[in-house]
């Protein structure tokens, strides 16, 4: 399934009419005016030779271009999402267009020499950046990339992008990190709505099935005006099937097998588009057993996932309506050896050569594990009431159910059992041209209702709460000759009502509200024909999340107290005997200011992209050591959440070079420096320097295979030189090392050594069959990843070879 389509309809003798749709990355701004561009390539169907000097014209406009010597063409500054292309090409004009299914920014359109009947041509149009974020550095991941390994998590898929890494709790729970920030500081937008999940700590990954995604955009700046508060570090935008009209019935069937964990995956998608109605359904199933590290099995790291989604779209006169539903059901195993509730057990687990618990391979998933289901229902209506304006209404409903099981007394009961209901209403007006200003004005209402289900035998770690947020925003852009300017402002009012239980089961309540302003300004300037400069400065804010406010006691192997769970009495002694009200505690929302620039320079055979950035966060919430206290389980270190000011400065650089027509290479390096500037100390869990090189070999035709691509990717991740000092837990327990509220931040184990990995992938097509082999950690390297919490207990998985097959059925 491609995201963008180009259709041929029955043609006149001298030209081919191609109808194409260009949809923007985000479903809710489809008709950005004059921001689209479209590129393609004309080839002879038989000889695969380029067709030069053909005229490509937009029907009903003056816009036209000619293909160059390689058959390539580009049309820029297109104002509408739907166009008809007229291709006039001498000698080919009375010919057939075969159905094609190609990929890339310049996919070929094949032309035959004789006309008998016309069929559909599907090509992809290059995407132009999303409204309001055009000046922010961003990258896209398309369906082809997603299909390569459907078993991946969202974070793992996008971690391949420049400046993006992942932070994890093993192979199944992975969160994206953009320029050092993760969790609540990254906004995840699923189908136009903030993904409503238990987004606290780093133990919870977004329950999004990537196989139902059509494309994913990673916005690396403070994109909060457009997408909502919380986007301090950036935003990840996941779009589902765009439901194009005029698309003949198709069915894609895929299957995969992976060696590590003996995982299987199957997927099916069926869809069709008529003139005014379209639909799709998609199903996905994944089952993976225990993964293995080079030297041992990682017991209880299996995963099971079922996903289903369906959508339909219909158009009546000027109204265009989309309905969408998706469902994800996951059972995620967590490494059994990562459980240590006592100091003794933690010391043993962290210091062992091998994990403490190794059993033979199994598909079985036992405690500790997470069972989650996520439902999303969506209605979107676009009213194109005038040619250059439209009104969009969008409503979403999400139900997120989460149960977590732990190794404990009564382990058959979930220790966490939550239902989270999220409801969104959005109304957006794309206004007509005002003084050459192009823009949108929107209002949004967001409601979240979290409830604990009874029967856990544990004091609720997260209280019941209701969040109500109303927002208003304006985004405007102006195009000058070589510069585009954009600016936006957003106002949010948020009210939270909280009800929880103290450890003695007494009820506490609180209600608090915030009003905050988010703003952004930026420009894109085409310095020369071959170089572009982007500049964006944005602000963002977020309310401290429920875990940062209310967590208490032990979770995993760490005992920590939220901002409202501790205070100092008159003697300066830390107390945790009651829950504070937010007003009393002085806890404040985080405020972020992110500046991001991007310079892109292209020559005939190279492309350089340099992206420096700086992010300053006021009231940055983090946890710091408090003391070692005696408990019935033995002495345990205790942490508290605190607020400070932090700064993040870094840069990403990539260099693409074309060695020949078939071979190109991409070199990338990312560097980040960060600091807690209030206490003048380092921050924990920040991504280390990483560099990689990808060598691609592309062959359009190789024997019976088409569009073959072989990639070899060596990469090196450095030791994190900026990690905090190490204090082994045994030194804390024995009292060799004492901890006070003024102690410098520490980690329990040294940051792991740097490591070299080699990945290889091979993808090719035979008619409608796509074949893929993806091998990761080919050298079976023993290594631990600094951003994986399991690094305390076990090595990362060893070699994995993933085989995938995809077959596309098409109605001819």
């Amino acid at each position: 399934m491609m995201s963008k389509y180009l259709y041929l309809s029955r043609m006149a003798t001298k030209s081919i009419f191609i109808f194409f749709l260009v949809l923007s990355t985000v479903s809710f701004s489809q008709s950005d005016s004059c921001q689209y561009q479209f590129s393609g390539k004309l080839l002879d169907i038989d000889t695969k030779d380029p067709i030069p000097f053909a005229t490509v014209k937009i029907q009903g406009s003056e816009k036209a271009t000619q293909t160059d010597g390689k058959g390539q063409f580009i049309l820029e500054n297109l104002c509408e999402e739907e166009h008809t292309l007229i291709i006039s090409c001498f000698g080919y004009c009375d010919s057939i267009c075969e159905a094609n299914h190609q990929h890339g920014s310049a996919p070929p359109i094949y032309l035959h020499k004789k006309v008998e009947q016309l069929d559909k041509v599907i090509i992809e149009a290059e995407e132009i950046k999303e409204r309001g974020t055009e000046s922010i550095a961003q990258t896209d991941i398309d369906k082809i990339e997603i299909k390569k390994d459907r078993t991946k998590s969202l974070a793992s898929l996008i971690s391949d992008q420049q400046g993006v890494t992942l932070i994890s709790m093993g192979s199944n729970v992975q969160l994206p990190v953009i320029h050092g920030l993760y969790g609540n500081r990254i906004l995840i937008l699923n189908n136009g709505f903030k993904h409503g999940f238990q987004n606290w700590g780093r133990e919870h990954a977004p329950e999004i099935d990537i196989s139902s995604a059509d494309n994913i955009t990673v916005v690396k700046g403070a994109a909060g005006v457009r997408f909502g508060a919380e986007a301090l570090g950036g935003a990840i935008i996941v779009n589902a099937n765009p439901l194009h009209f005029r698309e003949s019935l198709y069915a894609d069937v895929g299957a995969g097998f992976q060696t590590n964990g003996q995982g299987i995956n199957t997927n099916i998608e069926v869809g069709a588009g008529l003139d005014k109605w379209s639909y799709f359904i998609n199903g996905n199933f994944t089952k993976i057993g225990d993964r293995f590290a080079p030297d041992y099995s990682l017991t209880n790291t299996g995963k099971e996932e079922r996903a289903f989604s369906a959508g339909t779209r219909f158009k009546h006169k000027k109204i265009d309506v989309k309905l969408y539903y998706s469902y994800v059901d996951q059972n995620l195993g967590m490494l059994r050896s990562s459980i240590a509730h006592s100091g003794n057990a933690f010391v043993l687990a962290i210091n062992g050569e091998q994990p403490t618990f190794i059993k033979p391979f199994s598909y079985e998933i036992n405690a500790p594990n997470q069972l989650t289901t996520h439902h999303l229902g969506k209605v979107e209506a676009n009213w194109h009431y005038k040619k250059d304006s439209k009104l969009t209404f969008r409503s979403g409903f999400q139900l997120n159910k989460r149960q977590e099981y732990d190794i404990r007394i009564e382990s058959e009961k979930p220790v966490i059992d939550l239902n989270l209901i999220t409801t969104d209403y959005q109304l957006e007006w794309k206004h007509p041209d005002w003084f050459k200003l192009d823009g949108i004005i929107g209002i949004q209402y967001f409601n979240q209702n979290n409830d604990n289900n009874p029967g856990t035998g544990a004091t609720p770690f997260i209280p019941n709460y209701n969040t109500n947020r109303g927002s208003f925003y304006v985004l405007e852009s102006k195009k000058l000759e070589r510069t585009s300017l954009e600016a936006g402002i957003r106002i949010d009012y948020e009210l939270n009502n909280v009800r929880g239980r103290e450890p003695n089961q007494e009820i506490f309540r609180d209600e608090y509200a915030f009003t905050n302003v988010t703003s952004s300004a930026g420009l894109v300037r085409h310095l020369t024909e071959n170089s572009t400069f982007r500049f964006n400065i944005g602000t963002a804010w977020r309310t401290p999340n429920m875990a940062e406010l209310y967590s208490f006691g032990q979770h995993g192997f760490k005992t920590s107290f939220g901002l409202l769970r501790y205070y100092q009495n008159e003697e300066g002694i830390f107390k945790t005997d009651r829950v504070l009200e937010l007003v009393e505690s002085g806890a404040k929302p985080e405020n972020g200011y992110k500046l991001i620039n991007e310079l892109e320079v292209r020559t005939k055979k190279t492309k350089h992209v340099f992206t420096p950035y700086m992010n300053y966060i006021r009231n940055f919430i983090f946890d710091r050591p408090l003391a070692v206290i005696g408990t019935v389980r033995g002495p345990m270190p205790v942490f508290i959440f605190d607020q400070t000011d932090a700064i993040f400065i870094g840069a990403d650089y990539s260099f693409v070079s074309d060695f020949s027509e078939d071979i190109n290479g991409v070199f990338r390096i990312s560097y980040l420096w960060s600091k807690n500037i209030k206490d003048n100390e380092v921050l924990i869990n920040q991504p280390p320097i990483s560099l990689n090189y990808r060598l691609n070999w592309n062959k359009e035709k190789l024997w019976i295979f088409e569009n073959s691509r072989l990639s070899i990717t060596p990469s090196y991740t450095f030791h994190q030189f900026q990690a905090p000092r190490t204090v082994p837990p045994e030194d804390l327990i024995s009292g060799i090392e004492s901890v006070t509220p003024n102690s410098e931040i520490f980690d329990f184990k040294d940051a792991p050594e740097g490591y070299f990995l080699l990945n290889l992938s091979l993808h090719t097509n035979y008619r409608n069959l796509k074949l893929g082999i993806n091998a990761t950690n080919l050298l079976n390297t023993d290594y631990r990843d600094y951003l994986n919490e399991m690094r305390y207990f076990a090595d990362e998985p060893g070699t994995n070879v993933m085989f995938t097959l995809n077959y596309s059925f098409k109605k001819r």
Partner: protein
Amino acid sequence: MRKINNLALIAALGGVLFVTSCKKDEVAPEEENVVEIFTDVKLVFTNTADASDKVEARAQDPDGTGVEELTILDDITLDTSKTYTLTYEIFNNLNTPGENIGAEILEEDNEHQFFFTFSNNAFANPVGNGNIDNAADPINYNDTDENNHPVGLSTQWTTPSTQLTGGTFTVRLQHQPDVKTGTSGSSDGDTDFDLTFVLNIQ
């Protein structure tokens, strides 16, 4: 006119969804019986010859997971040349009434085992210094689980005729799901509690 109709359609659609989601509830989570947190552990030594002759020693962490320190409230002071049965009262007293966790441990006795260490040869039986350092060392368990492995909710101790002052007595309860075997030791699994008392024999 058509515009108005269209707008009405959108508004109606929105209205329906809005009404369905705007229920107000401000319910607190329900009360839970928490068995994972121990605030009070009492060791009860009962003279096997005289059930009314009891020696009790308490350890208390009044706020459970809070930052308040654990306190050992009593010494264990036993008489010479007597045989005692050691049992426990284990409670989470954050709950009212307190939650008896001993019952939960009995229910899951195939996942639990008590281990001990004490001043060398403090007892006439068992001899030695207990089985925390070496699981095979002698301890007189009175109970076994379904797999015939010792549990330790009840153990037997015989004091010598000699006196002891200021000795130590450590009891450790290990939680060993899928780990407990005939040879598993005091480091296997996780620690539910680990308490050291002063031991006197007079």
